[in-house]
């Protein structure tokens, strides 16, 4: 570092010494890079040290510019000096650091942490939050005197860009920090951030941008996406050098069924998990779905009733107040055990948590690492995670996870490519915030990774959309959000400006929705992202009560007590996250190893009987083979295929194959799929051999075929919901504005129908179709799977009885037709018969009936 920074750095070092600590090498490297005026991305699996790595760079910079303060400051000095300094410098305060965070809850945590450091260092900075929660009086104060550090969300950043006086307010902005960048990277909020950063770059060319991220498979891409293509320096990737030791183990049940099905193990291993909880100081138990979360909470409470009061649940459908309370208890070390979902994936480290349990497959290594990293924050303590399978095959997934981690294969998060709805919103934002010249904004937007390939045609459409509703001048009379005045696009209508500001604020995924009885009191608040997926008439749990959603209106979810017991089978199917590409690959390798007689880990050894049976009744494919099984029973002819491409790709693949085969013979299929493969069931045998000679795996026209075979309209409408909101078509309705808001309430389905009918060239419709392919169907993986299968040798086996691999698909295919009791009975019978045939006259455990009780809820 330059000499001018030496006194400041010495001051910092003395602070560390007083705390009995030393800065980590990666922190020093980050400050040095920062002080050279450069940008970068700091990445590590856990939270430790990243915040200060970036923040203290900015602090050193300020100290070096205020030598008079440095002369008098002493770390941990008394308070009056700081207040005096603050008051004296009041009018000169300027925003120096903008801290962007994905969640409002995180904003609070960050505020606390930064304030703590500043207080200890005696730096007279003001740190404040500006999120959807910030009251308007505080916002007014902030606009009069900006704090030195402002913590905000991507949406609130967009809102800031709506103000014409922003350039003045950021005249001394030195740095933007984007926290948890990996969380924003793959979605529209990340794109919104990219656009916001590009704007800030234009206004402040010397601005540095620093990202904080978890470990990713595509760190270089994450860095270049964050920085865009405008900066002079390529930016630095800095890895935290904290050597983290991970202990990954699994609970292997004493009896491994050779015919597993999703959710089969249920909560059978609850006593073992209870032992882990008792032995540790504080444990996080991660589950994959909310229903599993509630089920496991009940199961653990049953085994350890003495923990009532020190054990809690935490997930998105709980009242926000309750969740904050649980987080606080965890922070203070008073919570012995918390059963949660991905709701606790992000956030400040709970230093007392020393053990993590993962129920069911994590579906990805990065997720497993991140969750493991939620434990073991004391120095020299490893991060510990115990994996609890919910069916036997998941043990193989864990073995695959270990392999993938050893080979450093971490999942990537791919950035989104030019979502036009976000751009349409941004264009109005910039028009509001001072106006823009079209050519200049086009160039600016193209410096972002997301819109690097934006064509003139697409840009023109977005401008047309904002100015006149669409490409046709006459189609939308009297419509304009922005107007072209003397070469500059501006928002001239005050009401439109107001509504735009209101609608930006409602894109946030954790908007709170009130839950109220139709005729009764309020029950609490839940996250919009959760309740928007519940259909009217469906049941869901809130705080232990089973409720039926009647409707959602005006940001309120109206419910009534659900009648009787929910008939829904508990969703053990792992939620909607498919097995990652990296894990799928590792799974295939594990199968191949087993086929060669190699069982290296305890998990694989426990699966030896199952895999040997698979080998003898069917086959174990190696990595150049793909297994196909054919089987007939009273339900029909079954065709099983195991591409191991993840459940979403299998959905599209199953429909595609069904469509292509039905072109050869008039035949209808029912289908089921999971992360390993798919099954097509028909009354007559499927013309598979014939289809093979007709180029069954060809990859041309896949998009059209897949969309034709699925209910494309339904999928597109579902996808269009988000697009409609981002592009500002849906007015959410705000208290106070409700009366006028009523006249412009319309569902996204209406827009979809109307555009399809009257404006089919509307690019938002095209975006919906593209997003359906890429997100809902994992189209890229689907095509890759087809290409790989075409190159592999097909192992076709005619089965006399269903193989272990086929069993879960067989069961999934029956779920729709049978109630949970009937399903359980039938499956039990099938398992008994198959076990007998496999040569172990074992029959099922006497605990079978207890399982029945637990599965019913």
């Amino acid at each position, binding site marked *: 570092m330059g000499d001018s920074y030496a006194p400041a750095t010495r001051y910092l070092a003395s602070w560390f010494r007083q705390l009995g600590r030393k800065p980590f090498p990666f922190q020093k490297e980050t400050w040095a890079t920062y002080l050279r005026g450069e940008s970068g991305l700091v990445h590590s699996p856990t939270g430790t040290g990243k915040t200060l790595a970036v923040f203290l760079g900015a602090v050193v910079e300020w100290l070096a510019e205020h030598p008079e303060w440095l002369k008098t400051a002493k770390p941990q000095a008394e308070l009056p000096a700081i207040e005096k300094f603050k008051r004296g410098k009041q009018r000169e305060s300027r925003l120096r650091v903008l801290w962007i965070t994905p969640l409002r809850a995180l904003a609070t945590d960050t505020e606390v942490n930064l304030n703590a450091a500043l207080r200890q260092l005696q730096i007279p900075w003001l740190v404040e939050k500006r999120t959807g929660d910030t009251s308007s009086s505080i916002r007014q104060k902030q606009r009069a005197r900006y704090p030195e550090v402002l913590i905000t969300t991507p949406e609130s950043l967009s809102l800031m860009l709506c103000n014409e006086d922003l350039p003045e307010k950021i005249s001394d902005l030195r740095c933007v920090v984007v926290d948890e960048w990996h969380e924003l990277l793959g979605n529209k909020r990340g794109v919104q951030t990219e656009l916001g950063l590009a704007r800030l770059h234009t206004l402040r060319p010397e601005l540095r941008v620093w990202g904080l991220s978890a470990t990713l498979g595509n760190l270089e891409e994450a860095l270049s996406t964050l920085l865009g293509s405008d900066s002079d320096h390529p930016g630095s990737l800095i890895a935290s050098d904290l050597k983290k030791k991970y202990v990954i183990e699994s609970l292997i049940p004493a009896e491994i069924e050779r015919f597993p099905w999703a959710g089969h193990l249920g909560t059978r291993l609850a006593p073992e998990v209870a032992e882990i909880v008792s032995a540790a100081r504080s444990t996080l138990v991660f589950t994959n779905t909310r229903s599993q979360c509630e089920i496991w909470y009940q199961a653990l409470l049953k085994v350890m009733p003495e923990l009532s009061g020190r054990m809690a649940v935490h997930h998105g459908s709980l009242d926000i107040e309750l969740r904050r309370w649980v987080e606080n208890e965890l922070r203070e070390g008073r919570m012995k055990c918390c059963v949660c979902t991905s709701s606790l994936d992000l956030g400040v480290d709970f230093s007392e948590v020393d053990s993590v349990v993962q129920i069911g497959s994590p579906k990805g290594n990065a997720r497993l690492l991140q969750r493991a990293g939620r434990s073991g924050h004391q120095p020299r303590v490893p991060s510990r995670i115990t994996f609890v399978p919910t069916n036997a095959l998941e043990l193989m997934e864990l073995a695959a996870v270990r392999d993938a981690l050893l080979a450093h294969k971490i999942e990537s998060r791919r950035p989104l490519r030019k979502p036009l709805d976000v751009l349409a919103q941004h264009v109005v934002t910039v028009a509001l915030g001072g106006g823009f010249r079209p050519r200049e904004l086009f160039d600016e937007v193209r410096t972002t990774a997301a819109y690097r390939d934006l064509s003139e045609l697409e840009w023109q459409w977005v401008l047309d959309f904002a100015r006149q509703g669409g490409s046709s001048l006459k189609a939308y009379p*009297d*419509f304009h959000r922005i107007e072209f005045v003397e070469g500059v696009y501006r928002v001239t209508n005050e009401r439109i400006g107001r*509504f735009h500001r209101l609608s930006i604020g409602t894109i946030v995924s954790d908007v709170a929705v009130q839950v109220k009885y139709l005729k009764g009191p309020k029950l609490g608040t839940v996250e919009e992202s959760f309740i928007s997926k519940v259909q009217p008439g469906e049941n869901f749990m809130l705080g232990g009560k089973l409720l039926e959603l009647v409707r959602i209106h005006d940001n309120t979810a109206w419910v009534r007590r659900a009648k009787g017991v929910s008939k829904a089978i508990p969703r053990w199917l792992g939620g909607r996250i498919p097995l990652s590409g990296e894990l799928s690959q590792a799974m295939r390798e594990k199968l191949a190893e087993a086929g060669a007689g190699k069982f290296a880990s305890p998990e694989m050894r426990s699966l030896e009987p199952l895999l040997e049976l698979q080998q003898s009744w069917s086959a174990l494919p190696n990595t150049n083979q793909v297994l196909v099984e054919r089987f007939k029973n009273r339900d029909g002819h079954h065709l099983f295929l195991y591409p191991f491409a993840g459940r979403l790709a299998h959905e599209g693949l199953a429909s595609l194959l069904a469509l292509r085969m039905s072109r050869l013979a008039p035949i209808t299929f029912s289908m089921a799929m999971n992360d390993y493969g798919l099954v097509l069931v028909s009354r007559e045998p499927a013309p598979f051999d014939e289809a093979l000679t007709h180029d069954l795996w060809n990859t041309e026209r896949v998009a059209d075929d897949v969309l034709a075979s699925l209910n494309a309209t339904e999928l597109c409408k579902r996808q269009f919901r988000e697009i409609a909101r981002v592009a500002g078509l849906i007015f959410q309705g705000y208290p106070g504005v409700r009366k006028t808001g009523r*006249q412009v309430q*319309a569902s996204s389905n209406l827009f979809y129908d109307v555009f399809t*009918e009257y404006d089919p060239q509307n690019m938002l419709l095209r975006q919906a179709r593209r997003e359906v392919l890429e997100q809902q169907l994992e189209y890229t993986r689907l095509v890759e799977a087809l290409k790989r299968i075409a190159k592999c040798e097909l192992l076709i086996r005619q089965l006399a009885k269903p193989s272990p691999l086929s069993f879960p698909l067989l069961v999934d295919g029956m779920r729709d037709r049978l109630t949970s009791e009937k399903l359980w009975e039938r499956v039990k019978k099938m398992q008994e018969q198959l076990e007998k045939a496999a040569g172990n006259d074992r029959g099922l455990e006497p605990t079978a009936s207890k399982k029945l009780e637990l599965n019913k809820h």
Partner: protein
Amino acid sequence: MVDQTQEISIRGEKLRLLPEKLIEWPARRSLLVADTHFGKAATFRNFGIPVPEETTHAMLDRLSHVIERTSAVRLILLGDFVHSSLKGTTSFEPSLLEWRAKHRDLEIVLLRGNHDRGRADLFEKLGIRVVADSLTEAPFVLAHDTATLTRGVQPLGLELHYGLVGHIHPQIALPEGKKKLKLPCFWFGSDYGVLPAYGDFTGCATVKPEETDNVFVVAEGVVLKLDQRMLAT
């Protein structure tokens, strides 16, 4: 050719339910239509939300076809003819006037609905007779909604007459696998019946009819009687 309409009889009067979501009353050579919400697209556009105006033209064309096909001499609007009275949402008016010119001799009556306030001059230009409460024409009593139905009518009026209203925008939700197929419908109870909303861009509300009600859904250009057993999951 499949007959796409449904003929029903209420209190001895023959009515035809049309797939264009209107009711034809042959005896009076009248058409009944509800909740057209003209100008809804314009209202949205005024708020900065782009809804194409083509919806208005399509709606008017369809009306013209029905009028010609049935040789109706009177059009009865069961309320919410227009969507709002906001200033600056008049871009749909020229289309309406043009359409009116094509049907100069058509008698048009409007049973005023909650959305129809503040457009008196437009109604005058269009030559529409506005009725503030309900209109009794045996055996029916017509109004925009059920509250208005009982206003201006003898206390025992409803027992003699059958009510016909709009306002609700009824739709039926048919279970289809895990989802529901939603279709607009004509809903006839024991005392009154509700017409589906005619407007293209109007949302609908799912209704739960009694077992004794008669429900007719509109699906792909055909009106079908609903067998209520289809509603059971």
